[in-house]
């Protein structure tokens, strides 16, 4: 049975075996390689995408659960204001080193800021501790999230 889902706003029909993780549907079948593979067991967060707005690890999310859901990947991150603010802050703070984990980091950060526009340090810890960075860019990730939150708040105020 094909699985009908929506990816980055477009309806897609997937015929993969139902246990195929969403990650491999995205990467191998749809060519959306911005979502990265790091562990295969939801331990590192490199594959973070949004399913109905919530941060989900695509490597451990069987495609059958995607039926009828709204999936967003890093490829559409700049289609929302929060996403644009996160990308801008990440680039502005020079967070990136090797870059492999960063799309996943950004997707987690966007989900956090959509839910909590003014996150506390504990909120950031809780939302981001599932995203590993071997290069050790955490200090700057924290700074970029604060920066994005501030930029969004300023924009809100000026509206």
């Amino acid at each position, binding site marked *: 049975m094909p699985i009908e889902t929506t990816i980055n706003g477009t309806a897609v029909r997937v015929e993969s075996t139902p246990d195929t993780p969403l990650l491999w549907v995205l990467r191998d079948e749809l060519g959306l390689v911005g979502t990265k593979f790091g562990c295969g067991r939801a331990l590192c967060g490199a594959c973070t995408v949004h399913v109905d707005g919530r941060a989900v690890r695509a490597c451990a999310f069987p495609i059958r659960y995607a039926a009828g859901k709204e999936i967003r990947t890093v490829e559409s*991150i700049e289609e929302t204001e929060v996403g644009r603010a996160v990308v801008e802050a990440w680039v502005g703070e020079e967070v990136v080193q090797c870059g*492999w984990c960063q799309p996943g980091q950004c997707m987690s950060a966007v989900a956090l800021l959509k839910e909590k526009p003014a996150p506390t340090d504990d909120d950031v810890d809780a939302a981001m501790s599932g995203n590993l960075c071997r290069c050790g860019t955490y200090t700057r990730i924290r700074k970029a999230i604060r920066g994005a939150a501030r930029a969004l708040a300023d924009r809100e105020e000026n509206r």
Partner: protein
Amino acid sequence: MSRHDDARREGLSRRAFLRGAAGSGGGLVLALWFGPRLVARPFSSVEGAAEFAPNAFLRIDGDGGVTLLAKHDEMGQGIHTGLAIVVAEELEIDVAAIDVVPAPSGPAYRHSLYGVQGTGGSTSTWTSFDQMRQAGAVARTMLVAAAAAEWGVDAAECSARDGKVVRRDGSAERSYGSLAAAAAARPVPAEVALKDRSEFRRIGRSTPRVDSPAKVRGTAVFSLDQRRPGMLVAMVERPPTFGGSVKKLDPDAALRVPGVRRVVEVESGVAVVADGFWAAKKGREALVVEWNGGLGASIDTARLRREYTRLAERPGRVVRSDGDFEAAAADADELFEAIYEVPFQAHAPMEPLSCMVELKADGGAHVVTGSQFLGIDHPAAAAALGVDPSRVTFENSFLGGGFGRRANPKADFTVEAIRVAQAVADLGVPVKTVWTREDDLKGGWYRPMFVNGVAGAVKDGKLVGWRHRIVGQSIAVGTAFEGAMLEDGVDSTSVEGAADMPHGVPNLRVELSTVSLAVPVQWWRSVGHSNTAFAKECFLDECAERVGKDGYEFRRELLRGHGRLLAVLDRAAEEAGWTDPPPAGVGRGISVHESFKGFAAHVVEASVEDGRPRVRRIVCAIDCGLVVNPDQVVSQMQGAAIFALSSALSSEITFTDGRVDQGNFDDFPIVRLHEAPPVDVHIVDTGGEMGGIGEVGVPGVAPALCAALHQVTGRRIRRLPVGDQLRS
């Protein structure tokens, strides 16, 4: 923004999904074939003829596009940006206007010091600095000469600025692009004038990374992202013990997994070749393989520790001997010893390894991977194919972390991918061999395990004798580097950081016992220093305690005359507020170490909560000489501190009955955001020679951490990682 960013954006805006008929076969869906170009940007091709190519590094097109072919691999250290800054300084163009692409494999891109193309040893910036300046200056000189000829004036009447040549009287200007064709016709000058350092406008200023936007948006292409039409994915089941081999293989169940095309035996194990990653993985899980154990079948960490420790208690090969340690020890008021241990350590780059091979009709191949070492991978691939290297082409990608793993002395992941492709050559399609995290952690090529026996002799309140015995495998033995790295049977990387200890101890002896073992080992960020600095700096703290001195003051005295070490030590102590007591319950430790021509000092503040260390703050001072991009030096030192903390606190590779105990980030834990302390970095410039950066920030973290933990608990941690040692 470079012109390729525009192309990237265009690609993104054209991205659209169409609801459509189901695709055919193999679980392939869908809708529409998304060529990789539509979603992700491979590096722009450098094959095409550029209008102006003054040297192997620069291409200037008629439309003004400037491309830099980076001889060093970008694995996060910011070297693409660093090289671009240096070129831009002399070429007189904005760094952001340069499109940086990885150089192909070729003699022009050989490492200036090592002689083979590659990236490692924290050498890229200082070994390529003059070459890149030269490359930019040659291009600029030719562009200026072309403009001068056109205007019929002397070149001295023209100057270059922001991508243009201008007449000094202001009467005319020409863009580099418009001069490209004319410049190409000019002779390449044998000598060019380089700027004086006082004229630098870009070198030494923090400059945005050229790769950030693409990496954040997910459009940067890494090895694992590489795709080709018809490409198959292979996964190799390797023997569970090192040196093992296939005894019996039953491929039937694997072959029944939808999407699996082939199961083939290769040198390194059994390869499952499938339509995609998931089919390959499921196919591999369905394999039934019986293995011969091989040489590594009985390796056991507990036993290795005992054996290494026994060796550390006996004399080894003398690597350095100043004065007479034995006599000093016999005459000492106090002689004390300690055993310091570090485990096997995996690099664990976030992007697991992969390598795609497209076999060619002439017996050669096109290889697409993420390598730190094309200079080794290229000839190794050619040898595996049995062809002249000229028949093999290499295309490098962004590296999702390296830390040394992608500079394999035996080109392990490249040669394996060639073997897999050869085994299914009749399919006539490109094959990408991919590694899972488990493959990565269990697959060997670790930093070797080491045991250090250190002894100190104190007389009249002074440290008069020091003996450091090192026991471990050599990373050079059995590789192409054996000749270059071994001197009189001593692997210099086993003793670096110990044999060159600068401290003024009159009777100093360093010994090495090299162990032979079936575990494949290689360089891991900071190499031998990751072991020796731990033993040396920790034991110095033990010595300081014995003579009743503060760790900082004790080091200052021993390092008298070593200006650069003292400068970073003083700076770190000052910035950390060393003389003010730390908050209650918090310990503070300090270390200072030279490695890779760089000098770093660390102060670590830590407490212990529920028996677990909690690192509060790290202060670091670095002197690497002239700095090209200060913010990236800071970034490297921040990252190095966190990388070092993972191995100091929690990660290790151990063996039970020949098998690696760890498999993923649950049992090989690395530092997570909530555990990561702030890292304050201070750049010190003493006017010394340029040196390394990337690895220099690693060695000093563990010893400073252990000193901090000692201050709060009174206990010496002498074995890494700290793990649960403070719980009992």
